[in-house]
């Protein structure tokens, strides 16, 4: 078991390295200096407290979306619809936030948290029920429902819920100061707000649920071997619905954190496909919670620093290219890198296999 994990880590390291080299090759091809660009990337992500704050902000975002993917996948259902669930959570909370203006934050914030989670969960419930009851492929339905949710939010935020404030031409009414997540002094100037406390709390809660509770154990069994789980009397359908509800609620909550934190109102452009970035991290780490959190920090660095590379003309899409390269390399692990990593971790693996 240990040997397998070691091998996995080695091939992960190799994949990251190769993917970054491929990224460098791509930069050379388009006439940029990769050493300079990667230098800017890392200093832009870790160079100052503000940069570090932005990196942490991005990392927590990746971790929560990655875990949202993992919770669903481990329950045997794939949630590609997190983006839509997040938008609906953001819009619902922005609407309620504006409605409750003037009331106590002790009432308003919990209410907005609830409605955001609920909006995300209910939107996720539809594809979950379609999958469980009618066996309709959830990948297709969740993707299509992303488009529906985004168009709906665009309509609402440009129509019925459009702000009436002067000088603001997009988004809903602003969230009143008393409700906002404040920025943190230590990381002043960055996007990190006090919402990070809630995000970390959710991450810990999900980690606990996945690793320390019966439901989490059942999820693991179903995720690994559906027919075994079925024979041992677990209801795959119940788990799938539950996993999807949790996943959707997490996405909806993230939408609210963005709206009440960085954005201060619902804006149509608040996310640049956050969810898909987190989903890639989860896929790379094979839906393992701890791995997702650690990898999120690494990709947080890449993505925050990647924004800086635009100053020298390297498009930040490079980071997504590197991410998908890593997935391809890891997915082909058995064939492409398996031999190398087995050799690197010593031929002992083979002998052990024979013995046991």
């Amino acid at each position, binding site marked *: 078991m240990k040997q397998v994990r070691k091998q996995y880590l080695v091939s992960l390291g190799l994949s990251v390295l190769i993917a970054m080299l491929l990224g460098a090759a791509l930069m050379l091809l388009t006439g940029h200096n990769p050493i300079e660009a990667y230098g800017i990337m890392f200093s832009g992500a870790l160079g100052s407290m503000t940069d570090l704050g932005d990196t942490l902000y991005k990392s927590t975002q990746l971790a929560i979306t990655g875990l949202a993917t993992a919770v669903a996948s481990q329950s045997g259902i794939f949630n590609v619809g997190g983006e839509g669930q997040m938008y609906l959570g953001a819009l619902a909370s922005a609407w309620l936030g504006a409605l409750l203006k003037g009331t106590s934050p002790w009432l308003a914030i919990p209410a907005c948290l609830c409605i955001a989670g609920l909006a995300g969960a209910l939107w996720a419930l539809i594809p979950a029920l379609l999958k469980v009851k009618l066996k309709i492929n959830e990948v297709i339905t969740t993707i299509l429902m992303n488009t529906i949710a985004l168009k709906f939010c665009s309509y609402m935020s440009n129509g019925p819920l459009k702000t009436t404030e002067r000088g603001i031409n997009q988004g809903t009414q602003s969230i009143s100061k008393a409700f906002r997540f404040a920025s943190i002094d230590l990381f002043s100037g960055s996007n990190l707000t006090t919402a990070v406390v809630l995000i970390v709390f959710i991450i810990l809660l999900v980690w606990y649920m996945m690793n320390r509770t019966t439901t989490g154990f059942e999820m693991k069994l179903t995720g690994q071997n559906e027919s075994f789980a079925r024979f041992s009397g677990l209801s795959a359908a119940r788990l799938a619905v539950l996993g999807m509800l949790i996943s959707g609620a997490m996405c909806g909550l993230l939408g609210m954190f963005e709206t009440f934190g960085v954005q201060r109102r619902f804006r149509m452009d608040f996310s640049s496909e956050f969810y898909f970035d987190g989903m890639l991290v989860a896929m790379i780490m094979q839906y393992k919670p701890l791995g997702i959190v650690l990898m999120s920090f690494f990709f947080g660095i890449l993505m925050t620093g990647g924004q800086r590379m635009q100053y020298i003309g390297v498009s930040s899409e490079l980071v997504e290219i590197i991410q*998908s390269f890593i997935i391809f390399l890891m997915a082909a692990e058995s064939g492409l890198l398996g031999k190398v990593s087995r050799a690197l971790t010593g031929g002992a693996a083979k002998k052990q296999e024979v013995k046991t």
Partner: protein
Amino acid sequence: MDLGAIFNLSTLMNTINTATIVVLAGLGCLMTDQAGMMCIGIDGMMTAGAFAAVIGSWLCSSWIMGLVFALAVGLLLGGFYGLFVIRYKSDEFIIGVALNIFAVAITTFLLRSIPGQSGSFHPATGAVVKLPSFSIAGSNVSIMVPLSWLLVALTWLLVYRTPLGFWLHASGEHPESLRSVGRSPERMKYLGSLACGLFCGLSGAYLSLGYLSTFTENMSASQGYVAVACVIFGRSNPVYVFLAALLFGFIDAAGQRMQGIVDPTLTATFPYIGTILMMVILAVRYTAMKKKRA
């Protein structure tokens, strides 16, 4: 509401135009589905094809080269998908989704690497040559439209009336029996994924060079997923997939006609809602049929 305003010639033309994108991509997806490895990555293949078509047409000032570029990129990505799924036995779904994200990222990256271009490709007017079109009753029809109909018929013949189609299907359903008659299921699966790439290249070329002559970031707008839904709905039969795509195109076009009454952002959701409803109706009927039999 005047129904005549919705069902007129321009709605018909819009229906056909939108459907053609989905039909071509759907035929591609169908080829992989027949081989038992349904490709979700067609959305990415379309995006890459659309980009390649514009670049080819721009570099060589010829639509033929645009088409050649799109087909080449399609073939490359189809082979790539096949390599990972068949040779390295990767999860089809993960590779498909990663392929989609990769295609959007790399086309955006390359687009922004061309000086002065971002968001969409906008060189001097006339620098990008469109696919040829002809005129029927006053409206332009791209040659890709009749070509796609021809391809539907040819694919149907291939799948149901040739040994090749039989082997393709067998490579997914009964690979061992195929092997026992001396045919390699792997080779058939590769054939399926390469054909998928070619069809998606055509779809992409039509997307960017059919009526427009430009590429915009994330151009396919999830229409690849709609095509996958049509393949599921049409149970991998080219003719049914074609009809499903037409239905999708019609909902899209009818929605556009209703923009005077309903907000255009809302009407844009109709085809997606329609696609999901289509899948629900099919699934309900299917389960009802199963119950009857049992």
